[in-house]
């Protein structure tokens, strides 16, 4: 059965239309086409409203009593449980806590977003033309800051990884140490991926429909790339500079340690060589390899100290003193080399000849060494 006034489908027992309150005649139902009529849904839930005039029970979403046509609630009171009438005229029950956000200005009843007239009082409704109009509150601002923050953190981590790679490569660090920058790179790429998603959110929020907005977005991308390039270039520059310095200082430290260790061994060996020429010969033969090594180390050290002096001019005086010491040691190694050569000659001859060679060849070299020691001592 349908209402002759508003074409609303009605229960068979209805004497009045639940929507418009018109009297329902016996012949009205057959005259109307059900398809054209927006049917009212079945009562949602178990709640019902008792008519104040005749006492009949009515579903809670009915506006008028089906028995006597009396209004079931005062004008302006909202319907708490409603149905959504779709664009095709079918009714879909709406969950109790689900709202469309569109309320009638006349009676306050909540209506479907597709309703042209109020479900309860029949007053014309403003049709929601866009999605934005459905929302009562304006959209939150475009999240540029999330994008910028994530992008900068990602780029910074990527730059940190590049920095690490550069300095480890220059130091010729062992392979396990490269795991650290690799992990940093992976982490940085993850954050950059999240930044890309944030940018997608920005684009979805701000459709670049006008040229100005499109230009702004393009500039943002351009600046992101530029900042990324600057970060990476900075990382390469500082990674290379620090890596070079670290390599240089590590080499210097290693050579200084070697210098002290070998120098100490040679000094100890020369302290108590014995009393006879063969004892001396034996001592010289035993330190031969150390002398050769130390001669090479001192050459390297002189070069490294020169580089250090150029890079660290604030330590010039200290570096100069170290260079002088190493140069003296280098000269001493030269003299020791000569002594070893004489000792090798002494090894193959017998005593009288040994003595004469010692006096004629070894003695002058030892005197030179003494002079060198005296000069060093005087300077110190």
């Amino acid at each position, binding site marked *: 059965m349908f209402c002759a006034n508003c074409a609303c489908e009605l229960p068979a027992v209805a004497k009045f239309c639940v929507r418009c309150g018109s009297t329902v005649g016996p012949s009205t139902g057959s005259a109307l086409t059900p398809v054209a009529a927006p049917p009212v849904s079945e009562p949602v839930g178990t709640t019902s409203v008792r008519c104040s005039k005749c006492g009949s029970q009515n579903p809670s979403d009915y506006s008028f009593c089906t028995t006597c046509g009396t209004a079931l609630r005062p004008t302006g009171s909202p319907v708490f449980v409603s149905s959504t009438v779709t664009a095709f005229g079918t009714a879909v029950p709406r969950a109790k806590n689900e709202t469309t956000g569109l309320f009638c200005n006349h009676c306050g009843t909540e209506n479907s977003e597709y309703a042209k007239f109020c479900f309860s009082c029949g007053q014309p409704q403003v049709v929601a033309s866009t999605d934005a109009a459905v929302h009562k509150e304006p959209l939150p601002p475009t999240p540029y*800051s999330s994008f910028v923050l994530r992008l900068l953190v990602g780029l*910074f981590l990527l730059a940190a990884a590049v920095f690490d790679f550069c300095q480890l490569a220059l130091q010729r660090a062992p392979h396990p140490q490269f795991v650290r920058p690799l992990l940093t790179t992976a982490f940085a790429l993850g954050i950059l991926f999240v930044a890309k998603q944030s940018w997608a959110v920005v684009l979805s929020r701000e459709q670049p429909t006008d040229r100005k907005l499109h230009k*702004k977005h393009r500039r*943002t991308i351009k600046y992101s790339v530029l900042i990324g390039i600057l970060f990476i270039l900075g990382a390469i520059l500082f990674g290379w500079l620090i890596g070079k310095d670290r390599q240089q200082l590590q080499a210097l430290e290693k050579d200084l340690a070697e210098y002290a260790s070998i120098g100490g061994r040679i000094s100890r060996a020369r302290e108590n060589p014995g009393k006879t020429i063969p004892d001396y010969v034996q001592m010289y033969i035993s330190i031969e390899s150390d002398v050769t090594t130390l001669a090479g180390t001192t050459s390297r050290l002189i070069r490294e100290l020169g580089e250090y002096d150029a890079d660290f001019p604030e330590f010039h005086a200290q570096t100069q003193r170290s260079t002088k010491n190493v140069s003296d040691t280098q000269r001493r190694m030269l003299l020791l080399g000569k002594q070893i050569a004489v000792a090798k000659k002494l090894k193959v001859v017998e005593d009288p000849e040994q003595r004469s060679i010692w006096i004629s060849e070894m003695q002058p070299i030892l005197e030179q060494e003494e002079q060198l020691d005296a000069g060093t001592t005087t300077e110190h």
Partner: protein
Amino acid sequence: MFEIATAVAKSSAAFVLVTDQQNPAPVLPLGWLVMWWICARRKKDPIGGWLAYYYYQLYVGIIFSVILVAGVSIHNYVPEYFSGETQRFLLFLLSSLPAIILAVFEAGVATFLLVLKTWDLVELLRNVLIAQAVAQGIGLIVDAKYFPDNVPLSLLSFVPSVLWVGYFFRSDRVRRVFKTHDWEVVAKAVGVA
């Protein structure tokens, strides 16, 4: 320019005394005055006045710092340079590195703010500036205790940081350029910005 350049300059003095040649202080006031004059002439522009000065000092400071670090004080960031003084090296990093990293972030955020001109980026920049002021405050405390020679330079970087935080919170220009986007209207109505 003072802010970042001094943060970097003090790194030169952390381990050794800075020579006159390395100390940027005499160069800075002249550049400071020239930039202030340029910015004062652009008072009516949205990015003018103190806001333009902020950007000038930021970018010039970054360029100056890169030159200073790469040319002079890079050795101070080499751990081997502090051989046998690991704690001193860590304290030096604590006093200088966070401020430099945050300065790089600040430059990035400020650049995007210049392009996008949105209020959420102003809020992000404020947070970065606050973090930088805190980092420089910590640096100042560390310097006062362990590197007393650096205290004047630390102060020179800390004070401007705090002032810029105040500027970005209080400035009418910042609000009108980045939030209400009506600077031109106001500048025209008032006559002078």
